[in-house]
Every structure is written in C-alpha cells, then in structure tokens.
C-alpha cells in the first residue's frame, strides 16, 4: 500500500510539474516581457496575467473546498497545509522583497525554473541566485534545534 502510494506520488508530481510548466508557457507567464508589461500599469499595460491568475483561481477555489472535505488525500495519509495564520512583519517584509525582485526581472520561481529549459545563461544565473537567497534565509532564520 505505502509502496504503491509512493510510486503514484512520484508519477503524480511529475505530471503536475509538466502540466504546471505547460500552463506557464501557454499563458506566457514564463516570458518576463509579458510579466513586466502586466506590472507596468502606467506604461505598456498588458492585463493578460490577471486572466492567468483568474483562470487558476476559477479551478482552485471550488476544487480545494471540495477536496478539503475529504478525510485525507487519495494517495497520502494526510493533508500538508500551512499552519501559520498570523499576518506578521515577516510575511509582509518577505512578500515585499519578493515583489521587488519579481518587478525587477519579471521572473518568479515557477517560470524561472521552467525557463531553464531555454538554456539562457542569465536565467541559470537568476535561478542560482534564487537558491542562494533561499539558502541565506535558511542560515539566518531556520536554526536547527
């Protein structure tokens, strides 16, 4: 049972990853020019990305509601949901720093990783710096007990 679930989980993750990437490409969210033109309301505004987010939420809001009524997921013992509820300084500071980085380059984590497939060196650099940033956070804030 567990062995079979592990196998199913691996396949499911791979399929989800591929589908996510294809969604990013179809919507062109993977293209920094497209993202920056969405963010640039005062200039060459392209509202497309609002439709990407809208499309995703159209699926997740009703589906998540139904799924979370289940006692457990199909192939795992329990749901792994974020437990934090508080809106604190870390949340707002972190979101702000992320927003500045996103607004500078036009890349957020998913599109950056999918764009690695193009082999463009600055994208590789971006992802390496991104991992370094996550690692720096781990060193500073995630003390092992």
């Amino acid at each position, binding site marked *: 049972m567990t062995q079979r679930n*592990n196998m199913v*989980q691996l396949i*499911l*993750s*791979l399929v*989800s990853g*591929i*589908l*996510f990437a*294809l969604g*990013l*490409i*179809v919507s062109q969210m*993977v*293209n920094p020019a497209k993202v920056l033109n969405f963010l640039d309301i005062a200039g060459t505004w*392209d509202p*497309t*990305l609002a*439709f990407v*987010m809208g*499309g*995703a939420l159209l699926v*997740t*809001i009703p*589906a998540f509601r139904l799924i979370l009524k289940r006692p457990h*997921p199909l192939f*795992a013992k*329990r749901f*792994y*949901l*974020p437990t934090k509820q*508080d809106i604190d300084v870390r949340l707002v500071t*972190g*979101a*702000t*720093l992320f*927003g*500045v*980085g996103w*607004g500078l*380059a036009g*890349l*957020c*984590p998913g599109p950056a990783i999918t*764009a*690695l*497939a*193009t082999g*463009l060196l600055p994208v590789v*650099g*971006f*992802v*390496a*710096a991104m991992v370094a940033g*996550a*690692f*720096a*956070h*781990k060193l500073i*804030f995630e003390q092992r007990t």
Partner: protein
Amino acid sequence: MTEFTPVSGLIGGLMIGLSSVLMLLGMGRIAGISGIYSGLLTPAKGDLGWRIMFMGGLILGGVTWPLLTGSPFPVDLQVSWPIMLFAGFLVGFGTRLGSGCTSGHGVCGIGRLAPRSMIATLTFMTAAGMTTFVMRHLLGG
C-alpha cells in the same frame, strides 16, 4: 509592448489550477514552487522524491514544448546580468521569509481563502508594480 492575449492566459491559468488540484487531491500537498524547491535544501527522509519529480516536471514541460509545437517559447529577458542576480536573490530570500510566491500564496493560498495569502499576494503585487514604475518611468530603464 506585448499583445493582450486573454484566451491563452485563461487556458494557461486553468492548467496551472488543475496542476494544483492534482497535487492537493492526490498527495495533500500545496503546489507552491518556492516551498517545493526550498524543501530540497533541507533534505528530510522520504520527502525528496516528489519534490525532485515536480521540479523535473517543470523543466521537462519547458523541454517538451518545442518538440510538441515545433517552435520555442519566448523568454524575452529585460534586464542586465547584475540585476538578474540581485532580483534572483531577492526572490529566493523574500519567498522564504514570506512563506510563499505567486503559486503558493497567489494560486493555492487564495484558493484556500487564507487571509495570510491574500495579504501576501496584495503586498508582492503592489511591490512589484511600484518597482516596475520606478525602473521604467523614474529611472527610465
């Protein structure tokens, strides 16, 4: 200048939503990219496989697209090397400090109607918009 493409935007969004649903329904996991890859930095037993497979899928999707369609997908980079690296670091650090990115907070968190994610999304959208404004209209980048 990019063309307004609401239909392909909507279709792509539906695919991203469906992917997130698969993750939650099948494995009980949130399809938050920053959370999934950063979990690889702290290898926990039995928790690596699915993360690697999802990340592999993200890249594999990008690799298979040109094979499926016969044309590459555009990735028009807008900024210089130093800015790319600085931005990457901010994205990596900020998404961990703020516990999520566009997918984790924006798609999945709002999908669960979590107030924390709504605040986070509003915050990073605003910060990103202001950054673009400063770069393009004040500094003329």
